[in-house]
């Protein structure tokens, strides 16, 4: 008899329990909310750049998106909590705690660098966008070990698409401040953020929503 079978069984049990925990069922509305906020913020950002021709665009860009991130985190927290209350489950269960712990390092690093670069102005909005995209992709990939298998792929999509887009932009020399006016940098950054944090979340949320609906209709 293999002496590790009991440990392997326990690991399988843990994985299966994590997959059916409450946050899994709250994922579709959270993704749709995050996507809507992303598209909305990008629209507001581009509109404000075009109509007010803001000079200090890095600070406006960083503040706008960090504020949106805070709203999305609060919204996700409330949605998962509401779902837990509805299903009479514990909100801060061990599986949820593990997902939180997996997300936290990369998300806090991204938030910290975002805050620092926004207020010290060490870089431009496009570079900050890619820093956020890579950190966010890593955070999703880490969380994927404790939830839906698709979450790891979603993390890789962020990292892969961000790498391709960054390479294309570098190739076109768009990130050179001299070749690109400040407002165009901010508009490009808002467009990138709108696509990645808005459209991608909306697409994943819609996919989850439709597949869950199909599964529930026996």
């Amino acid at each position, binding site marked *: 008899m293999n002496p590790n079978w009991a440990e392997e069984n*326990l690991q399988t*049990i843990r994985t299966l*329990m*994590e997959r059916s925990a409450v946050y899994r069922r709250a994922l579709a509305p959270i993704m749709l909310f995050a996507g809507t906020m992303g598209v909305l913020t990008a629209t507001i950002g581009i509109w404000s750049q075009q109509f007010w021709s803001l000079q200090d665009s890095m600070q406006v860009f960083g503040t706008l998106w960090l504020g949106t991130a805070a709203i999305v985190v609060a919204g996700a927290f409330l949605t998962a909590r509401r779902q837990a209350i509805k*299903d009479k*489950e514990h909100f801060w269960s061990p599986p949820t705690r593990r997902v939180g712990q997996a997300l936290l390092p990369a998300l806090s690093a991204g938030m910290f660098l975002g805050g620092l670069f926004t207020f010290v102005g060490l870089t431009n909005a496009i570079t900050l966008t890619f820093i956020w995209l890579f950190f966010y992709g890593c955070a999703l990939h880490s969380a994927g070990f404790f939830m839906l298998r698709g979450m790891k792929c979603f993390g890789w999509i962020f990292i892969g698409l961000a790498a391709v887009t960054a390479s294309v932009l570098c190739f076109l020399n768009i990130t050179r401040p001299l070749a690109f006016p400040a407002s165009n940098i901010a508009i490009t950054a808002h467009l990138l953020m709108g696509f990645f944090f808005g459209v991608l979340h909306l697409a994943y949320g819609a996919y989850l929503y439709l597949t869950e609906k199909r599964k529930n209709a026996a």
Partner: protein
Amino acid sequence: MNPEPFLQLDRVIHEKGRLAIMSMLAASPELSFTELRDALGMTDGNLTTHIRALQEEGYVSVAKSYQNNRPLTTCSLTTPGRKAFAEYINLLEQIVRQNKPR
């Protein structure tokens, strides 16, 4: 090695498919038949057989209802089922502790 905990393991739960069903249901108040089937990659027949075995043992309850005019079958753990599952995990942990080098 003390074989006592191994001999005490609940044979109904110990089967791979039934253990997976019990694990999924232990973390959720109820799951639909299709959710279980898709999450565990089982066939309809296989899942029905395992659920029936768990139901006969009194570990799982099955409820049939309608959602959007379509039949919906949901499964949940009963109190004895939850207790048996907790006992099974305790025994597994005992076996793991026994196997660990001192």
